[in-house]
Every structure is written in C-alpha cells, then in structure tokens.
C-alpha cells in the first residue's frame, strides 16, 4: 500500500479511490447534490468499462455491442418489476444471469469469426436486442418505462442517494478486485497471450475459443450488473440504454483510460464524464451558444486520441513495470 503511493500512478489511483469512497460526504458538505448523481453514473459506467476492458483490453476483442448488457440488466429489473416482483434478491441474480446467458450465446457465434466480422456481429446482435426493446409495446417500446427501484428489505434503501452510491461503489471495488485477479491468473494470461498470438496459444494446447467464451460471458455478466444499477439509478429503462452510440462511448472510455490496465477504465470514465460536463460551459465561455455544439470538438478529439494517444490516460503516468 505505502509502496504504491511512491509512484505517480499509484498516488493518483489512491487519491481517486479515496475521493470516490467519500463522495457522498463531500457533495453533502458542499451542497452539490447534482455532483453525486454524476458520481453515481461514473461509478456505474466504470463497472461496465472495467468489464469491457476484460475482453477488449486484455483479450484484444473489439466488441462493439457492450451496451446491450446495460439493456439486459435494466430490462430484467424493469420487466420483473412490472410483474410485481420488486425484490432485488430475485431481480439482480436474474439480470446478471440473463446477461451472462446472452453473452454466452453471442460469444459462441461471434468468437468463431475474426477481426472486422467480430466487430460487426457484436454490433448487430446488440442492435437485435435494441429492436426487440423498441418492439416491446407492453414495456414502453421506444418511450421506455418508469420503474420502481429494487427492494432489499431491511438491508439498504436504494431510494436514498448516498446509500445507493455506496452500494455502487462497493460493487465497483468488487469488480476491480475481480478484474485484478482475472488479469493475473492463468486464465487471464491465456486471454492476454491469445491477444498477441492466438495461433501460438492454440499450438501450446490451450483451447483458446473456450477461454475467450468464458471471458466474454464473465464480461457480459458484469455488464449486466452495471445495467441493473443504471436502471435503479434513474428508476427508468428504455431501449436507448443499449443504443450503439452507448457501445461506442464504452469503447471510447476504455481506450481513453488505457486498454488492458486495471484502473484505466476508471480513469477513462471519469475523464469522459468530466469532458461531457465541462466542454459545453468552456465552449460557452469562448462564444455564447457554442456549448450546445460541444460534440463538434469532442468528435475530432476522439480522432486525435485514436491517432496519437493509444496508451490512454494510464500511459501519462509513465511505462508500467512488469
């Protein structure tokens, strides 16, 4: 722990985690409730980004449909709620299991293909569920559905913003812990090895397809968890949760933060939300009214990141050792 503080990377990570851990106290002290809601979304999106990083960053598999798991988790909560099942003890496991099941199904099909086919197939399967969501007239179709938050009787009240935030933060910490175990286990090394050379891994006797399928499924399950939280955060679900733009945003976040690094996705999520919240006011300072068009600056920034900043924010802290 103390050793980690001596490197800039470790110091930054510890500071960020500490600030996140006490964020509800800070926002209360400075009376900035709006910041807590952004903070909650940052933590939830970070869970999704960490889960995408498992396959995109460590595995080198460009999955362009990760937001679909937002939708699966969200709709599991919403649909069960609409049928009177409001207990989180039922909703949450169902949501995670559904996301894992869908990931296993899509993975079994898409992992047979390579490169650009994989990108497009993951995208297409996400679109498939998106259109299913649009067609679900009983659950609000295009307009979405207001839901009531999951109930954990006596344990935690999700309507309380601070408790909900701390629950999300605890789950983010658990996700990060899992990811660090994943990355350093034999399982993770096979996935990382297959990224640089899957033929060699196959030749070494590893069933690469099965390893990748397992990683894809795990990643989907954590994505579903993020979806469950997202639905509870807004008490609202809609097909827009799984639109392909959201999948693109998740890829942006992972690359922005630093692919294949443990805390990169967290840095990326924070940077993404800070940019999204701060670009409009900054542009408004330059010329009143420009803030509305912030994406005209953000778009070219992505191009520049893709061209010149592959290591992401994590690489700003210097090269990793070991």
């Amino acid at each position, binding site marked *: 722990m103390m050793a980690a503080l001596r490197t800039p990377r470790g110091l930054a990570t510890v500071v960020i985690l500490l600030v996140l851990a006490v964020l509800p106290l800070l926002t209360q002290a400075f009376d900035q409730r709006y910041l807590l809601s952004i903070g909650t979304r940052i933590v939830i999106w970070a869970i999704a980004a960490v889960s995408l990083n498992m396959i*995109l960053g460590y595995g080198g598999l*460009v999955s*362009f449909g990760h937001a679909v798991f937002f939708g699966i988790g969200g709709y599991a909560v919403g649909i069960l709620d609409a049928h009177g099942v409001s207990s989180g003890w039922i909703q949450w496991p169902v949501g995670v299991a559904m996301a894992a099941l869908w990931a296993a199904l899509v993975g079994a*099909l898409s992992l*047979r*293909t*390579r*490169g*650009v*086919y994989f*990108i*497009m*197939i993951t*995208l*297409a*399967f996400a*679109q*498939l569920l998106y*259109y*299913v969501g*649009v*067609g679900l*007239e*009983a659950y609000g*179709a295009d307009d979405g559905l207001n839901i009531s938050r999951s109930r954990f009787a006596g344990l935690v009240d999700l309507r309380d913003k601070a408790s909900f935030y701390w629950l999300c933060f605890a789950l983010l910490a658990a996700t990060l812990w899992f990811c660090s175990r994943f990355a350093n286990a034999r399982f993770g090394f096979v996935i990382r090895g297959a990224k640089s050379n899957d033929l060699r891994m196959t030749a070494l006797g590893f069933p690469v397809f099965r390893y990748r399928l397992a990683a894809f499924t795990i990643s989907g399950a954590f994505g579903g968890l993020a979806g469950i939280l997202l639905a509870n955060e807004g008490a609202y679900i809609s097909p827009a949760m799984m639109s*392909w*733009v959201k999948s*693109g945003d998740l*890829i*942006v976040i992972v*690359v922005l933060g630093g692919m294949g690094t443990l805390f990169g996705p967290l840095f990326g999520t924070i940077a993404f939300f800070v940019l999204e919240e701060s670009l409009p006011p900054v542009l408004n300072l330059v010329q009143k009214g420009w803030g509305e*068009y*912030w*994406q*005209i600056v*953000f*778009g*070219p*920034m*992505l*191009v520049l*990141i*893709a*061209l010149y900043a*592959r290591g992401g924010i994590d690489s700003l802290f210097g090269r990793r050792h070991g």
Partner: protein
Amino acid sequence: MDYLLLQVLNGVQLGLLMFLLAAGLTLTFCIMDLVNLAHGSLYMMGAYIAWTLIGWTDSFVIGAILALPATFLLGVVVEAVVMRRLYARDHLDQVLATFGLILFFNELVRVIWGPAGKSIAVPQFLSHTVEILPGLPYPAYRVAIIAVGAVVAALLAWLVARTRVGMLIRAGASNRRMIAALGINIELLFSLVFGLGAVFAALAGLMAAPLTSVKIGMGDDILILAFVIIVIGGIGSIKGAFVAAMVVGQIDIVGRAFLPDFLKTFMSSAAASSAAPAISQVLVYVVMAGVLIWRPTGLFGQRT
C-alpha cells in the same frame, strides 16, 4: 397478389439503395482495410448538400447531379485529412476515429442546417404514378429509384470487372503492397475509391430523401444495416453485397407488410402493428446469424 408484387418492388428499391451504401463500404474495407463507421455520415451529408443545392437551383435533377461531385470532394478531403492516417492502424483505432467523425458530422449538420429535419419534395415530373402492369399503379419516383439504382449497380460491376481502374481496384484488394511496388500511385487510387464510395453513399442518401426525410443521424441506423449486408454477403465482395442487399430489402419490406396480418391471428391488432416493424428488423439479424453459422465469412467471402 398485386399487393405482394408492390411490396416486392419496394423491397427491390430499398435493396438497391442499401447496395449503393454497402458497395462503398465493402470497397473501402477490402482495398484499404478500413472499417469506416462514418460512411453513414457521407450518406447524410449527401442528402443535406442535395437539399441546399436543390433549393439554390430550384431543380431536383440539377441539384442532385451537382451534389454528387460535391460529396466526391468531401470524401476526398475526409480521406486526405483523416482516413489516410488510419489505413495502417488496427481496427480498434479505425472504429474510434470514425466514431469521432460521426459525432463531428452530426454536430456539423446541426450547426449548418439547424436541428430540425428537412424535406425534399418528389420532383414534379416524377410525382405521378405509372401502371407497371395493367391496372396496377406504382409511384413513378420509386420506379426512377429502381432504374437509377440498377444502372449504377451495373456501372459499378462494369467498372470493377472491365476497366483499368477496376483492375487496379481488384489488384489492390488482393495485394496492396504489390501494386504499389509495381509503380501504381496507390494514394491516388485510395482517394479515388474513397471518393467513389462517398458518391454512392450520397446518391443513396439523396434518392431516399423524398421518401423519408433529411435528418441528423439518418445515416447511422442505415449504416448498421449496411454492415449487416456486407457481413452476410462476405466482406470485399461486390456481388455478395448485391445479393445480401436484395435479401435484406425483401425481409425488411415484406416483413413489415405481411407480419401484421400474420401476428393479428394471435395478438391484438394494435400490438401486432407496433411489433411488426421491430420483428422484421430482428429477422434481418437472425438471417445474418444463420448465414454466419453456416459460413463464417459470408456468402461470397473468401474462405480462410
């Protein structure tokens, strides 16, 4: 029976528009090895530029014809400024950069043309109907789309199969480095192919405009459908893109037209008519999954 024929024609028309979009996408992919998500933005820009030019010239045909070189120019500029730097990069960089371009173009349109959608009127001389069979009227404008689409598809097939440029394109698709080593100006070829793709996308966009509307993000959803088409057809195959576009066009239109009646047999009519478009979209993806299980590189893709 007549109703079926009309829907099949609508499907052919949609398929041809999709083919124009997919052709550019598949060419840029197989020759430059580029995943271009921003191809849909060129479709949108084509429609918006055409809207402006039609307003200036007060003529659909002149405006549309002028919009084509304009988008060619836009395509060449985009290629020179951004795309050229991406050819040697991996697919993730390309996805990220072209995703950024989509955001840029959507916002640019909002700045220039405002947030409200625009509409392009069907040109006067095509606003009547023609009898394609005795007693069976069909909008002349849709006939014109089918005609133009078919001619352009034939031109493209001729260009790729029979001309010197087409020969270079095919050679570039099989081995880029080799044709550069043989002294061909490969940068010029890449610009040309990208510009050509932009023109096809713009043509599809401006022809579709009078049927739908010109709006921000109009290219994004249709782009994903174009991706599905080139995946079904096999990436890099013009023939595959054509076949798959026709299949997808039929599924989409015929599904929309006949699913409601079918669904009404076991659900309420309101639910049936709202579920049908979504189900026909879903069907497209189911077909894609089926094709990929059967042939992981698409119908006409190269086996690896």
